[in-house]
């Protein structure tokens, strides 16, 4: 596992847990401390990627470009990365200025069956000569064959690797083994896995993905992320070291950052509760946890029921406006 690449999404996916309110001071402190740990890239920005600050998915406390500027100053050994969702961020307003600030690596993401919307963006980054990865989200909603087809499109646009996201934490070990193994076997580029901990399997599933040939582990320190959180990078690294793998990552730095810095970002400790379990069972994007809780309170309905109904409607990331509608309808039914 010498060529293991750790993608650190703490300052991106973690934003979901605090409604995208990370400050420049927090980003500065984090980047300064983690820079020497040996991670491959630190990804910074709004939880839904740069340019996603909006009423729909949450207004950023600090503009992405300001966060990126301080991160750029502090990251000397580790790459600075961003995440971009076509349909939210644009080249004109977000990507071009970010690249000008000196971003090294871009993850361009799409729902698992929609890779063709990433073409303009992957090409743009590839033509600048920067590293670019394709991300397929909510992978549990399609087949491994379809994932391969979509991943191949991204590779043809110029993606240097493909990251599969279990955005709802809806995986089982067999699904991870089967899917990641199949993609590793059939694609010429590194494959990565990004887990969510809804069913308590984030570290186990990330390990499983590595075991069948994935080379990118995408997680967050202390699991800082939406809902039940992500794969805690320091736990994964500790596990791999205990298993005897030589990985050039400094566990002590990661643990210090976890205890001393990431805990100060959190509004509450991460836990798996009945709501995050419902999200995993229903296969609904973990980032819906906060909007669902808010709507459940506002309309006096059970948040788990909202999740199950969202699951039936097969909502995808970004459709936060549906949450209120579903809650209203459930409230109406309850009255009748």
């Amino acid at each position, binding site marked *: 596992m010498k060529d293991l690449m750790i993608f650190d999404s703490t300052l991106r996916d973690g934003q979901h847990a605090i409604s995208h309110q990370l400050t420049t001071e927090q980003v500065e402190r984090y980047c300064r401390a983690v820079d020497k740990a040996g991670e491959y890239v630190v990804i910074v920005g709004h939880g839904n990627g740069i340019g996603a600050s*909006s*009423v*729909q998915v949450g207004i950023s406390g600090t503009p992405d470009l300001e966060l990126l500027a301080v991160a750029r100053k502090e990251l000397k050994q580790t790459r600075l990365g961003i995440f971009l969702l*076509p*349909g*939210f961020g*644009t*080249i*004109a307003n977000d990507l071009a200025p970010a690249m000008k600030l000196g971003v090294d690596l871009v993850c361009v993401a799409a*729902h698992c*069956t*929609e890779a*063709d*919307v990433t*073409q*303009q*963006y992957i090409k743009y980054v590839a033509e600048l000569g920067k590293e670019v990865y394709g991300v397929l989200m909510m992978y549990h*909603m399609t087949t491994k064959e379809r994932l391969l087809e979509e991943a191949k499109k991204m590779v043809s646009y110029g993606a240097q690797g493909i990251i599969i996201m279990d955005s709802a934490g809806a995986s089982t070990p067999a699904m991870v083994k089967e899917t990641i193994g199949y993609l590793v076997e059939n694609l010429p580029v590194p494959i990565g896995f990004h887990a969510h901990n809804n069913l308590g399997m984030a570290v186990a599933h990330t390990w499983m993905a590595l075991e069948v040939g994935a080379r990118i582990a995408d997680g967050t320190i202390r699991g800082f992320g939406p809902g039940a959180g992500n794969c805690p990078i320091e736990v994964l690294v500790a596990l791999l070291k205990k298993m005897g793998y030589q990985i050039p990552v400094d566990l002590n730095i990661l643990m210090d950052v976890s205890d001393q810095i990431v805990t100060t970002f959190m509004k509450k400790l991460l836990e798996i509760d009945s709501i995050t379990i419902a999200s995993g069972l229903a296969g609904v994007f973990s980032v819906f946890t906060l909007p669902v809780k808010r709507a459940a309170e506002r309309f006096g309905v059970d948040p788990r029921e909202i999740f199950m109904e969202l699951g039936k*409607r*097969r*909502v*995808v*990331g*970004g*459709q936060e*406006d*549906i949450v*209120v*509608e579903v809650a*209203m309808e459930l409230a109406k039914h309850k009255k009748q």
Partner: protein
Amino acid sequence: MKKIKVGIIGTGNIGSDLLHKVGRSEVLECGIFTGRNKDSEGIARAKAMGVPTSFDSLGAIINNPDYCEIVFDTTSAVYHTEHAPILKNLGKFTIDLTPSRIGMMCVPAINLAEALEVPNVNLVTCGGQTLIPIAKAIMEVHPETKYIEVVGSVASKSAGSGTRANIEEYINTTTNALKSFSGVPEAKAILILNPAEPPILMHNTLYALIPEPNIEALTKKINEVAASIQQYVPGYRLAMGPTAEKGKVTVTIEVVGRGDFLPAYAGNLDIITCAAIRVAEEYARKKILSK
């Protein structure tokens, strides 16, 4: 009544939907249905309807300008950039359904009359056609509004290859049109493709940040505007709102398609093809009267 001939370039979802709508028009008939895709289902349907077809895209109209007086371009922003000057030289009244922003931007409920005076009319985007009139209505009631955001969710199946290749243009064009038509100083557009099966109905949400919204006045004005759009987009409906919560006003619009080429979920086709037909019919009526 005499009919005016139209040409449709692009035989994908939007072109094929237009073809059906032209077929129902009292003043329009399709003179040529032309594209590049040899496997197009639209081409097969056009042939069955007895409409002349070609695989030479714009070339068919260059070689035989008598095919049509009005041209609908449904290809993509990049292609329309090439097509626009040629169509202008040929003297064709051009209705552009790509987000190219070359011609005058038009939302029929707002500036139809002006659009008939220029050679090239751009129909913004489906999200723009759906929510710009609502944004304008909000700004008329609350001119102090600083920010408006529009979110379009469309069924993945209804977004053809042109749309998918033009996400960047879609967002930028919608945002610019939103600002220029409504006058709001800051705006954002978001587009989400949803692959759910069965496909979801086209769903558009608008948020406006207004510290003290007058919901009664907003409701009245928005209902008036919705009624004026329903005159040319029958499936246009106010699904929710306006509602206010902590200085945020929300309005949700759904467009139920007529089910011409794609089923009813694809309201995003209808909103822009209905707008295109509205512009073309108005142009044709003027033309017929002046002949």
